[in-house]
């Protein structure tokens, strides 16, 4: 029983990290109908920046985290302004946007590969987090790390924060309106540009948080880690229902549970845990493409 609860806590912890990244994916898809492939790489950027700030500038961990989140958010906005906006303004076909997203993704991976090699000498680095994160707490016979205790709580708080923004603030209403019908919003004189930039900034900073937490839990970081994790986060977003922020979090938790509990109870399947996300994705596409929170974006108006 303790084992089960222990694994459940680990699952929620991992699931939270996926959830944080998935939120950004789902919000950008909601406003732009675009799968931003580069989004997974924002989590890598977040983790790497913390490492570089500490290793090269000797900053305090939490200061480094703060700077990293802000800088990653800026990179997110920059990627929108430099690459996506010009194409959107030209009414370019969707495939151009997707290809550009791949370009940005690859650019970030190559850039950090280069920076890492140049500044540190190798590209797979050992992330250094303050040791108190790995301190263990014990409650009622169940032991878990401080990190695993904090992460799910933090994620739910962040989810609450995002939902508050979406439903109780002016900009949140604008975001939801954009997601519903972008052309009408533009006609109403709202600057869709600023709103979309905000969505990118928010999504990227959440991904950075997710990436940093992930790096604390699994301290080996590489420039290409965003690819696999981003894919899993996207699968989580689809499972939960693409376009829904709550769905992204639910999907993240489900994925975390699947990845931790299945190998926990069937150790021989442990080698396949990376494939679960992919299998879940195919499953959802086969049986309920709109996911758990089920928003159907495809009703085309002729």
């Amino acid at each position, binding site marked *: 029983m303790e084992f089960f609860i222990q694994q459940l806590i680990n699952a929620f912890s991992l699931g939270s990290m996926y959830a944080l990244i998935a939120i950004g994916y789902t919000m950008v898809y909601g406003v732009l*109908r*675009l*799968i931003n*492939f580069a989004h997974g790489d924002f989590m890598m950027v977040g983790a790497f920046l913390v490492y570089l700030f500490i290793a090269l500038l000797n900053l305090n961990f939490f200061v480094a985290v703060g700077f990293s989140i802000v800088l990653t958010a800026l990179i997110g906005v920059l990627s929108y302004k430099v*690459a996506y906006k*010009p*194409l959107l303004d030209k009414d*370019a*076909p*969707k*495939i*151009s946007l*997707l*290809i*550009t997203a*791949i*370009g*940005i993704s*690859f*650019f970030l991976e*190559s*850039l950090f*590969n*280069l920076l890492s*090699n*140049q500044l540190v000498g190798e*590209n797979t680095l050992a992330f250094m987090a303050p040791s108190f994160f790995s301190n263990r707490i014990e409650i009622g016979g169940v032991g878990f790390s401080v990190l695993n205790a904090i992460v799910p709580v933090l994620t739910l708080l962040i989810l609450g924060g995002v939902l508050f923004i979406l439903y109780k603030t002016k900009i949140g209403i604008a975001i939801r309106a954009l997601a519903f019908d972008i052309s009408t919003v533009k006609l109403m004189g709202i600057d869709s540009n600023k709103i979309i930039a905000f969505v990118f900034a928010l999504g990227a900073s959440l991904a950075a948080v997710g990436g940093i937490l992930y790096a604390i839990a699994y301290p080996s970081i590489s420039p290409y880690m965003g*690819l*696999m994790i981003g*894919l899993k986060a*996207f*699968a989580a977003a*689809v499972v939960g229902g693409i376009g829904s922020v709550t769905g992204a979090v639910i999907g993240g938790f489900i994925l975390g549970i699947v990845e931790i509990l299945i190998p926990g109870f069937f150790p021989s399947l442990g*080698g*396949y845990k*990376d*494939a679960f*996300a*992919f299998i879940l*994705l*195919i499953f959802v*596409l*086969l049986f309920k*493409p709109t996911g758990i929170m089920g928003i159907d*974006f*495809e009703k*085309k108006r*002729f």
Partner: protein
Amino acid sequence: MSAKKYFSLIALITVLYVAFLFLTNASLDFYTITVLSNIYIFVILAVSYNLINGVTGQFSLEPNGFVAIGAYVTALLILTPGEKLDAFTLAKPLDFIAAIHIGNPYLVLVISGVVSSLVALTLAFPVFRVRGDYLAIVTLGFGLIIRFILINNPQISNGSSGISGIDDFANYIMVGVVALITVILVYNIVYSKFGRAMKAVRDDEDAALAMGVDTMKIKTLAFVSSAFFEGMAGGLLASSIGSISPDQFSFMLTFQLLVIIVLGGLGSISGSIIATFLVMGGMEILRVLDDRNFEFLGLHGVPGLRMVVFSVLLIVIMIFARRGLLGDKEIWELKK
């Protein structure tokens, strides 16, 4: 064009091209021949990748996955049981894997293509049923999963050590000929009712549906056809390099092909061919960027710089010249 005109043209091109192959084979040095051989294989890959991405307009990231499948199927079929027992260093191969052997390289290549196609067929069903951009993410994941399976199942693939000692049946002439055949076959697809339907799906899927085109079937057809040629190319790669390992089939391969077909012009067969030469040649030249000894205007080469430049190149092309060199036209249609 009429049957007579078509076959005369094919015959002429074939004769000239084969003559060119033999001439170059006899006169060029080994290094150049190797580079050209590799370029021909990438022409096969580019032209097939263009079929799903460019002609049908469905954004997919599939090549590295199907190339890997084709390469491993070829390796496992062409090696004799004895050779396989030697080649598998990390684990003993499964019995049927060790036992299976087909000596005819052409048959092996076709089987590699067919296996890739079958896998493509199973992927196509869940993906094309749903409207939306899921093809890209699913194929991206597919590539990752294939690599993952290859690394974690040494009893079928020898894990990360890979398989070496593969017969080099893929010599320069053979690769050149297979490239020609592929280009002709892809041309035949594009310039038929199927190709027109693919373009219709690309231009306006709902209008295509309204004209009676079974859009799901057409997308599946394009995807499965691409997979076939990519699988075959994988087999050629396995044979020409002689050894294969999971790392050779990473996302970088797909990314390179993406740059090629975008540069050439999405939907243009001749564009893809020209762009393959440009990009592969360019990558060779750009190799210097990774060399610390290289110096230009006071700046040094840095390992990893080449890929950064490459990705910036793709972004720049997409923003400023997304129709690439030829747009969706062929080189013989340029006056339109």
